[in-house]
């Protein structure tokens, strides 16, 4: 029964006991405290910077850097401005991270599957690998690999040689390099056509799956189409699109070819070996998470072992694997910053040099280097989310 008047007049809640007021007030107080403390810190910083004669600004980026960067050779010399140095450093970070992620994922998957092998030796070796690597700090491993392996390679005169195309010595690993010839333009057109053909194949197979419900090996056919076109294109062309440039010893050095510096090799090698042990555990966990009942059901339906893996196990395993895997990729990218310890000029190493020379610590670290990694973090997790969503619709 609704009575129009209140039996008890609503007593006004004193504001200091009102829960809504309290919630608001605590937030406002905290915000104020943070702003005040932050403001005081920042004010001190500006005062200190003025005192040292380096008020914050980014104009220093245009000054000449006065240092060279060894790799990639010639991209940055001492007359080039600081901002160029940064870009080169950024390139180096991305280069080693990208290659590292791909190799570490492949190698880690191998190790992860090896751990599940029925072959006792293989399984034990993989287990030993994982347990040994996980206990060692990456920095030490990197330094050990650099000083204990790559720096102990023979001198240029005594290089380890494989045919004409591979030289290994203390100055790095030299391989054949493909120099684009005039034919390259035509070839790129062919490659582009190959991409379109592969996309077409993929589209057709996806349609086929939607219509008939069968699961053809979309990924395999797509990649296969592209490779077939690339291969045929190469053969058909009158002259090759790339001409090989062989590394040749000359004096105390090697001329030509593609040079992988020992620094790059050490960083890459250490990153791959180290991260692979984490990838192995993630992959193993993912495969083990698919309950045996799934495999039993699939086999009892008559699916072959390969099809079982492909259609039933891997998609489910991948769902468990992808999230921690993307965060491992991000870890690898962040770990590449250790390259500074072996002299590989990644963005952190360059930043350190720039900061020492220009004194611009705040701008360099806070405004440039950290945002770089934050952006890469965001990109990696965005990619991971996208892939996660995609895995729910299309399956390879």
């Amino acid at each position: 029964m609704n009575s129009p008047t209140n039996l008890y007049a609503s007593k006004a809640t004193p504001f200091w006991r009102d829960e809504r007021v309290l919630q608001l007030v605590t937030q406002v107080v905290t915000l104020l405290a943070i702003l005040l403390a932050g403001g005081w810190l920042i004010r001190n910083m500006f005062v200190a910077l003025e005192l040292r004669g380096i008020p914050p600004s980014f104009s220093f980026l245009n000054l000449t850097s006065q240092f060279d960067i060894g790799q990639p050779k010639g991209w940055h010399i001492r007359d080039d401005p600081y901002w160029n140095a940064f870009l080169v450093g950024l390139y180096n970070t991305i280069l080693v991270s990208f290659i590292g992620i791909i190799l570490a994922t492949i190698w880690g998957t191998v190790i992860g599957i090896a751990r599940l092998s029925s072959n006792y030796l293989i399984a034990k070796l993989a287990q030993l690998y994982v347990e040994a690597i996980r206990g060692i700090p990456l920095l030490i491993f990197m330094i050990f690999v650099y000083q204990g392996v790559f720096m102990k390679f023979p001198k240029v005169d005594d290089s380890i040689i494989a045919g004409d195309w591979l030289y290994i010595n203390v100055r790095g690993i030299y391989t054949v390099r493909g120099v684009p010839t005039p034919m390259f333009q035509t070839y790129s057109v062919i490659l582009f056509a190959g991409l379109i053909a592969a996309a077409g194949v993929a589209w057709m197979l996806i349609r086929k799956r939607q219509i008939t419900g069968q699961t053809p090996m979309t990924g395999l056919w797509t990649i296969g189409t592209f490779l077939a076109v690339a291969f045929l294109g190469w053969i058909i062309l009158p002259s090759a699109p790339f001409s090989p440039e062989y590394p040749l010893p000359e004096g105390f050095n090697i001329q030509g070819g593609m040079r992988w510096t020992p620094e790059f090799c050490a960083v890459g090698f250490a990153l791959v070996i180290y991260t692979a042990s984490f990838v192995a555990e993630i992959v193993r966990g993912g495969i083990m998470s698919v309950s045996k009942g799934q495999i039993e059901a699939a086999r009892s339906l008559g699916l072959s072992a390969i099809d079982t893996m492909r259609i039933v196990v891997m998609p489910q395993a991948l769902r468990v694997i992808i999230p921690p895997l993307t965060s491992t990729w991000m870890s690898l990218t962040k770990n590449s910053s250790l390259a500074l310890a072996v002299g590989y000029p990644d963005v952190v190493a360059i930043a350190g040099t720039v900061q020492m020379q220009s004194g611009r610590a705040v701008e360099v670290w806070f405004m440039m280097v950290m945002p770089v990694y934050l952006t890469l973090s965001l990109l990696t997790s965005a990619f991971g989310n996208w892939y996660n969503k995609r895995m729910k619709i299309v399956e390879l």
Partner: protein
Amino acid sequence: MDSTNVREVENKKTPIIVARDVHKWFGQFHALRGIDMEVYKGEKIVIFGPSGSGKSTFIRTINRLEEHQRGDIIVDGIELTHDVKNIAAIRQEIGMVFQAFNLFPHLTVLGNITLAPLHVRKWSKEQAEESAMQLLDRVGIPEQADKYPGQLSGGQQQRVAIARALAMQPKIMLFDEPTSALDPEMIKEVLDVMAELAESGMTMLVVTHEMGFAREVCDRMVFFDEGQVVEEGTPTQIFEHPQSERTKLFLSQILH
């Protein structure tokens, strides 16, 4: 049986719980649509109805586990507003027993029961433990005092939950489907405890499907449907002369 349902009701003039035109929305969903109810001290009320009808939501608004957006709720003369002092005072007067027991798994049974008296009422350790043992005795499982909840059966856990709520010496006890999560053979032991509690004069609001309990123990039954009070009356009235079609329909569904 009317005679057994007539209990001594003290102070019939001032209800101990007053709910007036209470509304609650969950986003766009209008869960409570103008509930009016008065509960007098010592009354046992059974609230029943189909799922989603708002019964649990309603009793949870009384001790502020849910916040009502319109209307008034007054418990023992204290109005339930945004005043944190009021909310705390009301919660101390009300004990609640949950469907999922919600015992604290990392504490012993004794620890579960003594926790609130120690830290809210600031009793001494001896006082709290003595009271706890008495309550355990009352609900029939004094020997389980040093066990952990995970080692007890469902029925035992719920009895511990009742003891834990009683440890704060509340004036009102709320029961949110206390037996719905129990295996059938354990329902009786919990209902027996609740019946004893009723006998001792506690004001009780019970949301339940146990119609046998309703018939035996309660003074008044309230039928909820779609966020509103459809009908209320004594058990005899409800079971033998239901007025509304919806009440008749629901009763026919659960009394088969």
